[in-house]
């Protein structure tokens, strides 16, 4: 084990996979010579050379389309999208092409393309650099979507993503980049589609992911002080979902809060809430609560951003409310 930041752990996964498989190459804006806007690709050019680590122009649609073609032609490309917000200029490639190719080809053309990116707010980056867009990517079938909440998962999930024969979008959170925690040395894989129960509880389950896992843990402490036992489940992978872990926890606590930083409308919380109530209705002792961003763009000023994005206070209120009604 070593103490590593999420940035270092992400970098370690890239190194691990570049070393292991000559088909892997890493590319994107500022990734090679500069080492990445957030240092995720620091030193890779020096250590793996110009055929494996490549700078691109600011052409997200073009370079994601090229990642698709390279993946179809036998490579395992890893593209960095500097901000997930910029995926919006490449949605045709992502959703009409990358996500659909395997299906449209009748399963004959795998697309082992990984897209690493980062999203999230709480830093005053305003409406075009603070978003969590996982719901957009999940709405259309064909993309796996992964959001680590800590350094060990960043390393293990990214390695699994790169080895997966499907397109995977791996979304770090900018607030977590510097967060250090223990990371296994050597080869480390966290299989896609496995949630993790990060805190056992008995009264209510908080399903969450990414930055809100840490916030949820803090809230669970406060709730415990008030006599409410919160189970915290880090979903980690949103497609595929780990339904077994979800169902087991619902069957145990019978009360559910789903929390995410992305907007409420048509989001992951609303979707998961439907799945739980339609499949486990008899298990539920209270209405499912969803905590999400208000349906307004992410504002700049702190006073405003604090209102729009989920806060510990809102999470706590939801957890207590689920139990006390």
């Amino acid at each position, binding site marked *: 084990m070593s103490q590593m930041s999420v940035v270092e752990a992400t970098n370690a996964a890239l190194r691990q996979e570049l070393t292991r498989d000559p088909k892997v190459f890493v590319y994107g804006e500022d990734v090679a010579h500069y080492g990445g806007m957030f240092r995720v690709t620091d030193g890779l050019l020096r250590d793996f050379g110009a055929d494996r680590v490549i700078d*691109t122009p600011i052409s997200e649609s073009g370079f994601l389309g090229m990642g698709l073609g390279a993946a179809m032609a*036998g490579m395992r490309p890893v593209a960095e999208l500097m901000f997930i917000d910029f995926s919006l200029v490449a949605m045709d490639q992502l959703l009409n092409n990358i996500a659909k190719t*395997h299906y449209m080809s009748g399963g004959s053309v795998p697309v082992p393309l990984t897209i690493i990116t980062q999203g999230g707010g709480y830093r005053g980056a305003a409406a075009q650099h603070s978003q969590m867009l996982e719901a957009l990517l999940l709405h259309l079938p064909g993309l796996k979507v992964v959001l680590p909440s800590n350094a060990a998962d960043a390393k293990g999930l990214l390695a699994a993503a790169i080895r997966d024969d499907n397109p995977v979008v791996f979304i770090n959170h900018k607030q977590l980049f510097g967060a250090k925690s223990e990371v296994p040395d050597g080869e480390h894989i966290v299989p896609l589609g496995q949630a993790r129960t990060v805190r056992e509880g008995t009264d209510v389950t908080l399903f969450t992911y990414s930055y809100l896992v840490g916030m949820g843990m803090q809230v669970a402490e406060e709730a415990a002080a008030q006599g409410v036992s919160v189970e915290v489940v880090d979903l980690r992978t949103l497609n595929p979902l780990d339904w077994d872990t979800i169902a087991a926890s619902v069957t145990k606590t019978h009360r559910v809060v789903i929390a995410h930083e992305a907007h409420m409308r048509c989001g992951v919380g609303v979707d998961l809430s439907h799945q739980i109530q339609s499949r486990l209705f008899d298990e539920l002792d209270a209405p499912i609560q969803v905590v999400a961003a208000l349906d307004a763009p992410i504002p700049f000023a702190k006073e405003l951003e604090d209102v729009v994005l989920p806060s510990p206070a809102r999470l706590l209120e939801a957890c207590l409310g689920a139990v006390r009604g």
Partner: protein
Amino acid sequence: MQEVRGSSPLSSTTLFSIFFADACLRVAVLILNLSLGPHACKLAPPMETSQRDEQFYRSMVRMRAVETELLALSSAGQLRGSLHLAQGQEALPAGAGAALRKDDYVTATYRGHGYVLAKGGPLLPIIAEILGKAAGLGGGKGGKMHLFDLEYGILGTNGIVGAAVGTAAGAAWAAQLQKTDRVALTVCGDGALNQGHVSECMNMAVLYQLPLIILCENNLYSEMTPLSRSHGDVNLAGRAAGFGLNTAQIDGNDPEAVYQVMSEAVNRARTGGGPTFIEAATYRTIGHYQADSGIGYRTAEEVEAWRAKSPLDHWAAKLGKRAPAIAAEEQAAVRAVFEEAWALPGPDPLAAGTQVFA
């Protein structure tokens, strides 16, 4: 009719140096071929002109026969979906296909079935897919706008204007990174040049010197809108030259011209000479799709004038007495495949939810 240019500015010196460089390349390749044997440097197989004439004619007649069958089915209400035909444009896939190896990559448009046929794969799985059958290339999940066949390098016909250019550029990138001499061809329309994605890819093709050929079928219209109402500058090759691609403007109704300029572009790409943009003048003598008569936004005279330039008719005339027998043979073969494909079972409905992921 055919004019080859280097990157702008276009001067006689650049022209000369390009021809000179090209000539050197050909000599070098010849020497390589002679010294290393036929398998060492796998350039397009040389073909006698007379052999090519027959091959082009066969290819064009086959494509027309496929379209004739499809049109009949569509008119009878027996074919699902949109049908974008390419009558009048058959010289392009015929010439381009002949310049490629089996292991080269191709992406094309919703109108690109001709390139899939010309790549040489078996006809039955292609037709079965277009008819939505389980034995089709995509098991009935793709249809005519989404034809994939990895074995023959077909990385997709595509329903999104311009989108397939990135796929081909990426395959070319892979070929380069893998240090193979494979090349990628992408086919797009005149209208596709107005997609930002295409501009992004042209820039990267030059930046990385990708072994990519962009064959632009300039049929003067995007859907029902003429170039003059959609392009600020109708010089499409000029636009590509602005990005630094090698460019050529050719008569797209002459399969021999298409073959020649494609072969040059392919050889250049195989030997590290970078990407080429080919603007091919052509015309679809049929509507944009099955519900478009092709008249109204175009005058009957204009259509007639281009019909007179039909590559199929010209090559029939060129082959003379041999043509009818070849045409009959191809048509019969296509007919037989359609009959066989029509009788095949459709996909199992339970397959609808499968293969979303590998």
